[in-house]
C-alpha cells in the first residue's frame, strides 16, 4: 500500500516536472492554502497576497524542472513563497514590518477569553489572534514549527536565516505566546506560572 502511494507520488512528480497541466492544477490545490498562509502572515494585504501567491506558483512552475527532491516539496514551495513575499515587501520598502510587532489596532479587540474550558474552535481562534500579534518573523517560525512540523534546519532554509536565529525566533515567539495565552489556557496547561 505504502509502495503504491509512493509510486503514485513519484508519477505525479514526474508529470509535474514535464509541465502537465492537470498535475500542476493538483499541485496548486494541494498547496495554495500554505502559500496564502505565508503571504498573509508576513503582513501582505489581501490583493497583494493574491498577486504574490500567483507569482509564487508561476515561479514554482518555471523551477519545477530543476526540482530534484533535495527538500520536501512543501519546504521547497514554502521557501519560494517566503522569498516572493519578502521581495514584495522589500520592493515596496516595507521589509521593516517583518521585525516590528503588528499594530495594536489590529489586535485591540482580540483580548483573550476567560480561563474557562475553551471549545476547540475558540481555542484555535485565540491562538491565531495571539500569533497575529507576534512580530512577523517570530510568527513565521512558530507556524512552520508547530503547524507545519518543519525542522529547525528546514525553517532556516525557508527563511534564509541561520539556525540559531530561527531558534531565537522560536524561543521568543513561544515565550510571548505563553504570556498572551497564559490566561486563556491557564487552567488547561498552567503555563502562566
Amino acid at each position: 500500500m505504502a509502495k503504491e502511494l509512493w509510486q503514485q507520488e513519484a508519477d505525479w512528480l514526474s508529470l509535474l516536472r514535464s509541465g502537465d497541466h492537470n498535475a500542476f492544477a493538483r499541485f496548486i490545490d494541494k498547496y495554495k492554502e500554505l502559500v496564502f498562509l505565508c503571504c498573509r502572515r508576513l503582513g501582505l494585504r489581501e490583493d497583494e497576497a493574491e498577486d504574490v501567491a500567483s507569482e509564487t506558483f508561476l515561479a514554482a512552475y518555471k523551477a519545477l524542472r530543476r526540482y530534484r527532491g533535495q527538500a520536501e516539496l512543501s519546504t521547497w514551495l514554502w521557501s519560494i513563497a517566503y522569498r516572493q513575499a519578502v521581495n514584495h515587501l522589500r520592493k515596496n520598502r516595507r521589509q521593516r514590518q517583518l521585525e516590528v510587532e503588528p499594530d495594536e489596532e489590529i489586535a485591540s479587540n482580540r483580548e483573550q477569553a476567560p480561563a474557562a474550558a475553551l471549545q476547540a474552535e475558540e481555542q484555535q481562534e485565540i491562538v491565531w489572534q495571539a500569533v497575529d500579534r507576534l512580530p512577523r518573523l517570530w510568527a513565521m517560525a512558530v507556524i512552520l514549527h508547530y503547524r507545519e512540523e518543519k525542522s529547525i534546519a528546514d525553517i532556516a532554509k525557508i527563511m534564509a536565516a541561520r539556525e540559531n536565529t530561527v531558534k531565537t525566533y522560536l524561543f521568543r515567539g513561544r515565550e510571548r505566546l505563553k504570556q498572551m495565552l497564559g490566561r486563556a489556557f491557564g487552567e488547561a496547561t498552567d503555563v502562566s506560572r
Partner: protein
Amino acid sequence: MLADRLNEDKFDRTLSQALQRHSEPVPAGFTAMVLRQVREVQEQRILARVVLQERLALAACIALAGLAIVVAAVFPEIAAAAFRGVTAGLTGQGEDLIDRIPLAVKALSGQWRLYSVLGAALGFAVYSLVELLVGDKATIA
C-alpha cells in the same frame, strides 16, 4: 520540574493542535487563474523562441552578406580563389565572371566614394545586428 516539563509539553501540543486545525481561506477560482497565467507564460515562451530564431536567421543573413562584401573588398585574390575553388568542380563557365571580380575591384581601388558607401552599408549591418539581438523593440513581454 517534571510538572513544569509536562506543562511545557502540553502547551506545545495545544499550540500545535490549534494551529493545525486552522484552514486558510483562498479566493474562489484561484487555481483556474494561475493555470491561465501558466498557459500565457507558455505561449509567450513559444513566441519568444520563434522570434529569436527569426532574429538569428536574419542576423546570419546580414552578417554573411557583410562578410562577403568585406572579403571581396579587402582580399579580392582570396575571394576570387575561393569562388573559383567552389565553382571549379561544378562548372567552368562561371570562371570568366569570377575572374572579372578582382579586376573590377582593382579598377575601382582608389574610389573613396565606393568605400564610403561600403563602410556605411557595413555600419548599418552592424547596427541592425545589434538592434536585432539586444534591441527591445521586438521584446516579448
